[in-house]
């Protein structure tokens, strides 16, 4: 079954993972800019990372017939130093014009600090000014509920259109409010945190399939680049129709991402 993994950090994955994902039906990935597991020592480090996302990685994916798109931003874990973050923000517009860049992301909050919020607001303003889609990272564990609400408040204050914003890493305590305020919601399938495939299917059963997608967010940590097709198996074994599986993991991401004229599967 063909699918899109709309959130995966392929710079952290091996070429073998591309091969396995292609064999499992993956036709496209979108890769948000994120934290590398350590703080970069200079803004130039981000510049090179953005070059990797916009130049090298699409060519690596293409070897396996997978379309590669990405999102550009400074992530919330490195936004605590506003002066440093603003150095990075200065050259983001240069990358927004690249052919595989769909928007600004994954922006958001980590520990819900004032500095993180200020940098989030500046990047939302940048996205609105440049008419970009926005992909939002929501905080981990005990910080998620508060951070999700602060982020939606900031988006609304900036005049961002909810239909052009995907709020990711939702769980049972945030998905209802995210969908209720008009945003798209992403469920991240992780073995130990966020959603397991079983819980993601529970959420689909409770909240429906509108404006909802699933992703692996595979990265350098405990994660699984094949979690999306594993969630397909979970849906099918419960008796859900193939049409619903395709809607969640192909039609929905395609509909959201196609709001960017650069997104194409042709």
């Amino acid at each position, binding site marked *: 079954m063909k699918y899109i993994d709309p959130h995966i950090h392929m710079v952290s994955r091996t070429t073998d993972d591309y091969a396995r994902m292609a064999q499992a039906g993956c036709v496209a990935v979108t890769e948000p800019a994120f934290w590398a597991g350590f703080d970069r020592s200079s803004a130039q480090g981000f510049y090179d990372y953005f070059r990797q996302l916009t130049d090298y990685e699409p060519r690596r994916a293409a070897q396996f017939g997978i379309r590669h798109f990405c999102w550009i931003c400074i992530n919330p874990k490195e936004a605590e130093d506003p002066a440093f973050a603003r150095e990075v923000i200065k050259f983001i517009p240069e990358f927004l014009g690249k052919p595989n860049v769909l928007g600004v992301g994954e922006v958001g909050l980590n520990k819900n600090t004032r500095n993180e919020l200020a940098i989030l607001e500046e990047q939302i303003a940048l996205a609105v000014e440049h008419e970009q889609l926005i992909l939002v990272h929501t905080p981990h564990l005990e910080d998620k509920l508060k951070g999700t609400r602060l982020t939606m408040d900031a988006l609304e204050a900036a005049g961002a259109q909810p239909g052009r914003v995907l709020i990711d890493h939702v769980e049972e305590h945030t998905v209802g409010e995210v969908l209720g305020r008009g945003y798209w919601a992403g469920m991240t399938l992780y073995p130990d945190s966020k959603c397991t495939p079983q*819980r993601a299917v529970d959420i689909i059963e409770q909240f429906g399939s509108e404006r909802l997608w699933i992703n692996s967010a595979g990265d350098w940590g405990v994660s699984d680049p094949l979690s999306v097709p594993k969630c397909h198996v979970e849906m099918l074994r419960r008796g859900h129709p193939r049409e619903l599986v395709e809607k969640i993991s192909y039609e929905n991401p395609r509909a959201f991402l196609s709001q960017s004229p650069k997104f194409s599967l042709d």
Partner: protein
Amino acid sequence: MNDTPCPMPRPDVIDTYFQEHRAKLIDIAAFLDRVDRSSGGVDDDVRVRALHKAIPLLIDGRGDRARRILELLSDPTTDPVDQAPAKGAIGVDPNGSY
């Protein structure tokens, strides 16, 4: 909220998932035993207290257990903080009255 029933019949749900969740229940029991058998650190770690407070929600007879437990473990405040002590999260509200 859509609240579509799970299309899998209840006996099949139990057949499919019981063993996995039985194992998780034993894991929690063994973890709490392990904490009791260990020494050092604080006697009443906030994470363990939060776990003790969350467990009764599993059997209080009400639905939405996952959502309610996630809310119990969340920071309930609404204002951004001036500074965070670290980048990471611990899994429960460190200032919670568990």
